[in-house]
């Protein structure tokens, strides 16, 4: 099973639940998910709020999905440039593949990722939908 551990998901709440960003104190570059070292050499970051607004930089459609997502296939996955400058990979839902193009405006939503079987935990996090 794909990342079955609820603890592993729990450790990612700041990123995937709350969509926090990390801004380098030196070069001001913004990252999604915590970095240990910025390419500028800094190891100092400030946590910031990301707005959840962004544009699609690249996208594809998944047909052969991992087991946890099989029943939802086909679905769209995109690389998204967030308004603050960070880049994130995420599912884009409530749309068809044909609805998307490079530059499509998207916004973050809170959705179910997958469940760890019938008895396991339900995992939630951030996906994106085309702006409406």
């Amino acid at each position: 099973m794909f990342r079955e551990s609820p603890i592993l998901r729990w450790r990612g709440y700041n990123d995937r639940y709350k969509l926090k960003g990390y801004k380098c104190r030196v070069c001001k570059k913004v990252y999604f998910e915590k970095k240990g070292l910025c390419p500028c050499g800094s190891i100092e970051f400030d946590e910031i709020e990301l707005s959840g607004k962004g544009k699609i930089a690249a996208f594809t459609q998944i047909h052969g999905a991992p087991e946890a997502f099989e029943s939802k296939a086909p679905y769209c996955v995109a690389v998204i440039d967030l308004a603050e400058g960070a880049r994130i990979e995420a599912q884009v839902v409530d749309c068809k593949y044909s609805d998307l193009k490079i530059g499509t405006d998207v916004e973050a939503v809170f959705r179910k990722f997958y469940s760890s079987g019938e008895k396991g935990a339900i995992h939630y996090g951030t996906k994106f939908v085309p702006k409406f």
Partner: protein
Amino acid sequence: MAGIVGWGSYIPKYRITVEEIAAVQGQNLKAIIDGLGLTEKSVPGKDEDAATIAVHASRDALKRAGINPKEIGAVYVGSESHPYAVKPTASIVGEALDIGNEYTALDTEFACKAGSGTIQINAGMVDSGMIKYGLGVGADTSQAEPGNALEYSAAAGGAAFIIGPKNGSVATLDFTASFTSDTPDFWRRALQPYPAHAGRFTGEPAYFKHVLGATNLILKKSGAKISDFDHIVLHMPNAKFPERAAKILGATPKQIEVGLVVKKIGNTYSGSSLLGLAAVLDVAKPEQKILVTSYGSGAGSDSFIFTTTNKILLVQKEARKVSEYIARKEYLGYAQYLKHMEEIHK
């Protein structure tokens, strides 16, 4: 008393028409539409459940409230489709909203009035000084067995309300009253996937007795007349029940028009009367009086009288309106609909 400082709503994008369901079930379309007064209902996306709906509505409520989420001291989520039997939806909402850890949280359940009860709890806690702000949500991805009469109306959606001090409210809570009895009109036993109901018994001794009971009680307590209200919202299991209850109370069709969202989205259970209230707040003007009565099977009703303030005009545009969610839609065929409903229980 306390008041509403922010509200938010959410309705999933997907719809299925009553016509599509009736064709599959081989039932008389006209009789169903005449009986229920609705033509389509909302359907959750495959990755949506009561928790995701609650988070979406609550984030919009926060935008309108304009407060620091860490000032919220209580989170209550009412639903009859909580994703877990044991593990709170409310803590998922609190985490996603980044409220921190210094808050109390509970899931509530009382059929379709699990959400309205959270407004009373939060108002009591704000007025007692226990908390500054409390978040209350009603959200559901309602269950209905294929072929059952409920299948035509059981829908998905929700609304959230942040309750806080009267000063700074967009609508003050002036009065509340409840009317409760042990009435076996609708239930879902433990571990059962679908609810059951007592047919026509859900009408007179259940819905009408409690909705009219609570509404008449609040009118008596407040000294208000039904004609005093600019907007009236009565729980909407279908369109016919609230229309008839309004008529019995002496309300006009215009008074219930804005809040009667059921015609476009179906019965969102714990979200039903609260989505009606959200739709009213979306367009209300200052100094308007709003009467809301919820209904939950089993059975009980909560009634509320709100008065809007000047502040409401400043926050209406801070988040999407119910009408915008209603307008965003994609129709599903029956087979797609079944797949969506199967997915949300995984």
